[in-house]
């Protein structure tokens, strides 16, 4: 299955993402999930960024928090709301908001 997963928190309290298998997995970082793309906790990038090459972060939610796009990890693509709509319809069959 092609699964697009929305991550909206920095501390994730569920282990679902570690267990679910998908042929194509996308991670879309929104709300406070954007910190996964920008913070190096104790010098290390978020382990979430190693889970899949299909990584996206919502530009509006970066701007809200005063975070520059230049602070985003190079593996993560910056997208806007319109792009998220296209991801949902064109790249993934199912979505999950964890």
């Amino acid at each position, binding site marked *: 299955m092609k699964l697009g997963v*929305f991550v909206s928190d920095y501390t994730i309290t569920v282990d679902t993402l570690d267990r679910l298998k998908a042929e194509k997995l996308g991670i879309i970082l929104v*709300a406070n999930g954007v910190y996964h793309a920008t913070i190096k906790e104790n010098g290390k990038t978020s382990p979430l960024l190693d889970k899949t090459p299909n990584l996206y972060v919502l530009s509006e939610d970066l701007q809200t928090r005063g975070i520059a796009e230049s602070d985003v990890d190079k593996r993560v693509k910056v997208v806007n709301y*319109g792009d*998220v709509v296209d991801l949902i319809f064109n790249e993934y069959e199912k979505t999950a908001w964890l």
Partner: protein
Amino acid sequence: MATLTIGVFPGLVGNMAYDFALKLAAAAVDKGHKVSIWFSGNATGSVKANQKHLKDYSTGEKHLKALLEKGVEMCTCEACTVARGIQKPEGIEGIQWNAMHWYLAKIHGADRVLHIGGE
């Protein structure tokens, strides 16, 4: 054109996941898709009319009305809403009130579903 059904459970003002849902719905409609939104849990508080749009608080009513005008179908979980003391005449005009099966019926016809749980 495809159809997207969004289920929103976190509450307006109290949770920015709600704001995300409304913005996503607007973006999908702008791209020519058909969108329906189901409010349940705390999100049902947002169908109350006459919300005061203070700058310190996420605003709901004007966004909901704009989405209604754009043809987005919206429905609130009746039980969740009346449990919060909001009766139908006090609701924003144009938002439907129905039982939980409304959501399932919309999901039946949807190409994509985004279910936003949480409080």
